[in-house]
């Protein structure tokens, strides 16, 4: 079954431009007379109430003075934004967010290319191994992060034990206690939970490459690496791009991993902008809203990028 953008019903009754409600008219009028509203209104209402309203509220809050207990104390102008940009850790947090997103997404994409290639081969037990691959996807990201926190525990963490036994380290280490070792581990966890979705996306992309293209390459005497570079990679481009953008959005927003493993600490040494936003919420919710507005603007850019690379409306 091929599930692409929902096919437009118009394509079925094509050739009669404009007579789109044709099948309905035949069915005693019920559907068409009421119009689309009763059918789609509940969805639109829910989106307005839970997605659009908070966006408005977010922007409004960022220009207000709000007490700890939540009472609005008049307008703050752009004061909260100035306070945010003057925050001592702010530059560092922005830098770390960029680094976090770029490193995690790049590594995820590279490793997934390899995994997709591997799991596209035929070998005994392929379906079982593919099933094992989905575990980090299905399980809550938070739980996976907590699992790694425990495995990195200094006293009894199994990863410390393994590394001691392999002679990689001499003595048990508090990996999450300092910024320089906490970063790589959290990035590792972020890659780990992003791999299944990305690999499956690329696998779906690989399946759309027709077999006769490879046949032709073989006849022309192309080696495996050459075939991969000049056939597989270019044809995989659409799936790859969609994977990149969806991962950018997810990784940029991945709050639970950092929150569970270090809470962004020590200090705000390991905070991304979303974690920083959450910490600000405890002290000044309006400043936190200002941070959110910045985050939200980032997400909007990424969403526009997604709309560009996905072909959601290619039928029209």
């Amino acid at each position, binding site marked *: 079954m091929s*599930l*692409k953008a*929902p096919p437009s*019903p118009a394509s079925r009754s094509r050739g009669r431009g404009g007579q789109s*409600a044709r*099948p309905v008219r035949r*069915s005693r009028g*019920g559907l068409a007379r009421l119009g*689309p509203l009763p*059918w*789609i209104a509940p*969805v639109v209402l*829910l*989106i307005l*109430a839970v*997605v659009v*309203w*908070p*966006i408005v509220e*977010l922007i409004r809050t960022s220009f207000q003075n709000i007490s700890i207990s939540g009472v609005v104390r008049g307008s703050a102008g752009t004061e909260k934004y100035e306070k945010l940009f003057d925050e001592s850790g702010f530059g560092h947090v922005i830098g770390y967010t960029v680094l976090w997103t770029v490193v995690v997404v790049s590594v995820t994409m590279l490793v997934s290319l390899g*995994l997709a290639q*591997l799991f596209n*081969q035929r*070998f*005994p*037990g*392929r379906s079982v191994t593919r099933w094992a*691959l989905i*575990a980090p*996807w*299905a399980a*809550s*990201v*938070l*739980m996976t992060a*907590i*699992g*790694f926190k*425990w495995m990195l525990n200094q006293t*009894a963490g*199994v990863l410390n034990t393994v590394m001691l036994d392999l002679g990689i380290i001499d003595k048990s280490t508090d990996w999450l206690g300092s910024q320089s070792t906490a970063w790589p581990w959290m990035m590792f966890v972020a890659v*780990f939970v992003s791999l299944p979705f990305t690999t499956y*996306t690329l696998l*779906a992309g690989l*399946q*759309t*490459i*027709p077999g006769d293209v490879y046949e032709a390459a073989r006849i022309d005497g192309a080696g495996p690496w050459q075939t991969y570079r000049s056939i597989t990679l270019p044809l995989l481009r659409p*799936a790859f791009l969609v994977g990149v953008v969806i991962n950018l959005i997810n990784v940029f*927003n991945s709050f*639970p991993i950092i929150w569970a493993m270090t809470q962004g600490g020590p200090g705000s040494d390991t905070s991304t902008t*979303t974690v920083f*936003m*959450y910490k600000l919420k405890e002290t000044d919710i309006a400043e936190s809203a200002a941070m*959110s507005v910045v985050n*939200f603007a980032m997400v909007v850019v990424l*969403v526009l990028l997604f*709309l560009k690379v996905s*072909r*959601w409306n290619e039928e029209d």
Partner: protein
Amino acid sequence: MATATQTAGPGPVKEGPAGPAKRTVRPPRRGFRPRSLVIAAFAWLLAALFLAPYLEMIVTALRPADELRDRTYLPDKLDWSNFIEVWRESSLGNNLQVTLLVAGGSTLLVLLVSLPAAYYTARMKFRGRKWFLLLVLVTQMFQPTALLVGLYREFYQLDMLNSVWTLILTNAAFNLAFAVWILTAYIGSIPQELEEAAMVDGTSRFGAMTRVTLPLALPGVVTAVIFTFISAWNEFVMGLTLSTEPDKQPLTVGINNFIGAYTVQWNYLFAASVVAIVPVIILFAFIERHVVSGLTAGSVK
């Protein structure tokens, strides 16, 4: 459909190529050669690595309290009582109850609102159809994290913090897109002629909808249901922000609170985690094939 853009020929490419292509990629079955055994060994190793963190959680959940600090890979004896004690000793039982209500409630709500919308969108062409689909797609990309402060302020003003209803509404809203998208694609792929034939035989439109189209769209409905349920079950940030009273928080937040305690009882923590993780991994296996197309808005598959 990835090839569609590459060839970029005139006219839309119908859904055909993906089907036959899939078959031609696979070589005929004739036993496995040594090369594929090497590949298999590598793949099995990777699969084990992917499962390892979850197996370690299960092992920890079975460790007796006095063996928690031992640097051993496996405990000397297994302590199954952790699975019972954790619910008795902590308040996680309340959190599990909240999670069940929220996941069940939001799944039901998603189904109730998305089925009619998907049916209409798949069957009718109407003004604003494209805008509706765009709105739905964009909400899929907006995750709650960036909107947390706005969500908090909204439900604070409505005096609806610490309410199961709030979590049901919010979880439903952020998972609507996937359901609408996948259901529209499924229903759209079912020939309308089937419904019309049933109506010629004297069935009402509603009867045709519920007794002809819906059963055929069942795989899509099941996918939407399981996906929504899992997302709501796993949700953390909204639960953390919109519920501040420990008893009103979902299981993920409750488990995370365990870490804040003075001495973390890891065996209890993971006994609860295993309950939170294992069912969804098994459920997910049923829908894995359909999820990619739903999440990428069908642009990959």
